[in-house]
């Protein structure tokens, strides 16, 4: 069966998309400095994967299939404190106002990223927050234009082999020329600039190189930063964080668009109620059961290792399902796995 339409991002997917996003993240950071990112491309989260930080959200849940929207409503962010951004104005306002969030951090340029048309209500919130908006889909930029008519548009184009991704950066007119110059300069420094921007007033174009091969750690996501469905709030002892899954048996983690070259995932499970929860564990990728290996540390702890498919899908949800949850010895929660972190390797 093929995947139903309406949940896949437009344009390149898999390794090209992930590599382009990584380059885009590097490019933007070099050109404009620290960014407070709101990535509205959930579940792909391509740019958030590149920045390894930010707020995840949906660009327009009212345009999605209702079943997909209902499923995405189950996910929690910020250690379990909030739902995804983009599900409702009251919740959205609370997410943006949370002083622990990167959106509220000073000294950073606010930037929202989307791969599909953005709901007018969200556009208004972004305008009030003085956020710039980066859209991968030029059609989406056209739709946003009436709401953000006071902004200028910079066209950015990334090419990797035969793949090309068009972006539009919407930002205040007074800053557009300076940012364009900064982006051109950053692209030159990165050695990726295609042509001379002075000669070509249109899009800034970057020629992206494929990711280098190798076996190494590409990303590490601590429990407190997981975007998940089926777990309680994360807990911490200093900088060491963990999250207990439950009361549902199936725990799902949104991994977004993985780094280019990602080959396997390791989930550190540092505790379970009883050993059979590990013995009879089922791993899923985008809802389909997949084989996994256990690197057992003790009766009740292990690394769960899952090989990733090739080619990688545009976005990835990793699930871990236990046969049953257990009543915690003291308290009322029903618990599955205690997850410390996930690591993604090439």
């Amino acid at each position, binding site marked *: 069966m093929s995947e139903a339409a309406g949940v896949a991002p437009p344009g390149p997917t898999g390794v090209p998309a992930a590599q382009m996003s990584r380059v885009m993240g590097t490019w933007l950071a070099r050109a404009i400095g620290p960014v407070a990112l709101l990535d509205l491309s959930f579940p792909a989260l391509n740019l958030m994967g590149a920045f390894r930080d930010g707020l995840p959200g949906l660009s327009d849940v009212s345009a999605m*299939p*209702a*079943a997909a929207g209902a499923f995405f409503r189950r996910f929690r962010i910020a250690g379990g404190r909030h739902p995804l951004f983009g599900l409702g104005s009251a919740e959205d306002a609370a997410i943006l106002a949370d002083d622990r969030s990167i959106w509220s951090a000073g000294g950073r340029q606010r930037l929202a990223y989307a791969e599909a048309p953005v709901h007018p209500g969200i556009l208004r919130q972004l305008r009030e927050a003085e956020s710039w908006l980066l859209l991968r889909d030029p059609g989406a930029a056209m739709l946003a234009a009436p709401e953000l008519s006071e902004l200028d548009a910079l066209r950015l184009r990334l090419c990797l082999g035969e793949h090309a991704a068009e972006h539009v950066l919407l930002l205040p007119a007074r800053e557009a020329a300076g940012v364009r110059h900064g982006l051109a300069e950053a692209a030159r420094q990165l050695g990726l600039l295609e042509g001379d921007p002075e000669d070509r007033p249109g899009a800034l174009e970057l020629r992206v190189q494929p990711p280098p091969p190798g076996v190494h750690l590409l990303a590490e996501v601590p429990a407190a930063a997981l975007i998940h469905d089926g777990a309680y709030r994360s807990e911490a002892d200093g900088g060491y964080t963990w999250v207990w899954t439950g009361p549902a048996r*199936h725990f*799902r983690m949104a991994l977004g668009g993985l780094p280019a070259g990602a080959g396997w995932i390791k989930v550190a499970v540092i505790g379970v109620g009883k050993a059979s929860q590990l013995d009879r564990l089922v791993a899923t990728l*985008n*809802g*389909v*059961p997949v084989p996994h290996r256990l690197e057992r540390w003790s009766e009740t702890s292990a690394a769960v290792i899952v090989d990733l498919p090739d080619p990688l899908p545009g976005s990835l949800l990793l699930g871990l399902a236990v*046969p049953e949850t257990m009543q915690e010895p003291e308290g009322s929660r029903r618990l599955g796995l205690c997850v410390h972190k996930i690591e993604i390797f090439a």
Partner: protein
Amino acid sequence: MTDRRSPLNVFTPLPPEKNGIADYSSILLEELRSLYDCTVLCDDCGAIAPPGVGVRDQAQAFRWIAPESRVLHQIGNNRGHLFVLEALRLFPGVVTIHDIGLFYLYELEARGIDPMLAQMMHSSPRLAAVYGRHWKRMGMKTAANYALFDMQRELLARSTGVIVHSHFAKAKLQALYGAEATRHVSVIPHFAPPAEMPERAVARQKLGLPADAFIVATSGFATRAKRFDWMMEALEQVLAEGVELIWIHAGEERPHEYDVSSQLERYPLLRERTRITGYVDEDALNAYISACDLLLNLRFPSVGESSGTLARALAAGRCCVVSDTAAYRELPREAVVHLPVLDQVRSLACAVSALHRDRELLHAFGANARRYAETELNIASVARRYRDVIEESQGRAVARPGLLPPRAKTNSVLVLDGGADLSPQRLAAALGEVTGSCSLLLKFSSMQEIIASSLGDAPLLARLLPEHVALADVRILAPEDAANSNDPSQDVLPPELAGRGGILLRLEVAGSAA
């Protein structure tokens, strides 16, 4: 070679869940997979499916289901089917209704009493007014609710095809919901599972049972409707007459429903000759059925349910005794022994004695049972009939709400004439599938008419509003002033209703969009 089988998405529980419908689906899929490329969408990703049948996370079904996809739901009356009910709302398709009463399933789903009252109103509008008031205002909820509110209206309305296991079940649905609502209901009997049943002697040896004893068996969850009370009394009588037998109950006790063990204390002869196994897996169940001489499968009252155990016993060629009621009446008279509904204790005692005495008769019933199972209840035949229903249902287009953008909430005002025809039924119909906040204008032509209506059947609103609807605000918009555009009370009406007068209600409607 190209696989030309069409994909079929099946929402169902599967083993290892302890659920008869999970076992049913597993066996059915063994056969359906030759007709379709089957995928099970399940809330247990560790579920065990037959070879070649994939299991996927039902919560992510939107990834694989398209508007034209073939979808089958297996629904029963327990917690394991909550996700199937939700999936039916998002992805309508063919539904097999295994239990004709689903009050308990809806009760498990509802959060609080008001959503349940909404579902009762949707299922049986006329009864819901009375029973809803009893439950909400007086705290009275009895077994009558489970019998009277079968909660099938939503399933009938949302499905493209419905499968039930008996003509009794179909006739009951037709009687309650009418010909139009049930024209897509088909009868496919519960198949006889094609399991390899061990020989009687082998099974007895495996289970440690005496080779020469006369063994009477029952199985499944011990519920009140299975009439263990009648069975135990009858078997005690038979034993008192000097007939020797052993009773085995291969199934789990549910003391909160019927406490078999404690009731058994009243029957000393039987107690000495009884074994209660607790829950048994499929292999063990087959062994116990093979080991027995006589299988008892009584029901009273029956809501039209079928029995997987009975189908297994028929396939094994065992003589079975059933109640002559509901779906069991449809079983051939020569294949099972039917007990009259009245005076079942005496009838059962006579039947057991007679069959114990006349083994030729016992075996004749068994042989006929096997023949019936091998023909009418044959799994391959049942799978083909499933295919016919699924393919026929493809012609009945129905929107799949799960694949569409969510319906936007509107602030429009519902309007209902407030004259002599105003009734609770008309108001309930006007609310339709509304849930949450809404406004309703009861339209009157004059204040005199409002007063007459209010006094004529006071208290008007208390009489009109269903129990699951709460009144948040009331405004009287005097019809005589309505034409005056300066009347400030008109501000609460949308432009298209300007100039209307009557009683404007703001309501909170419980329910889950049934």
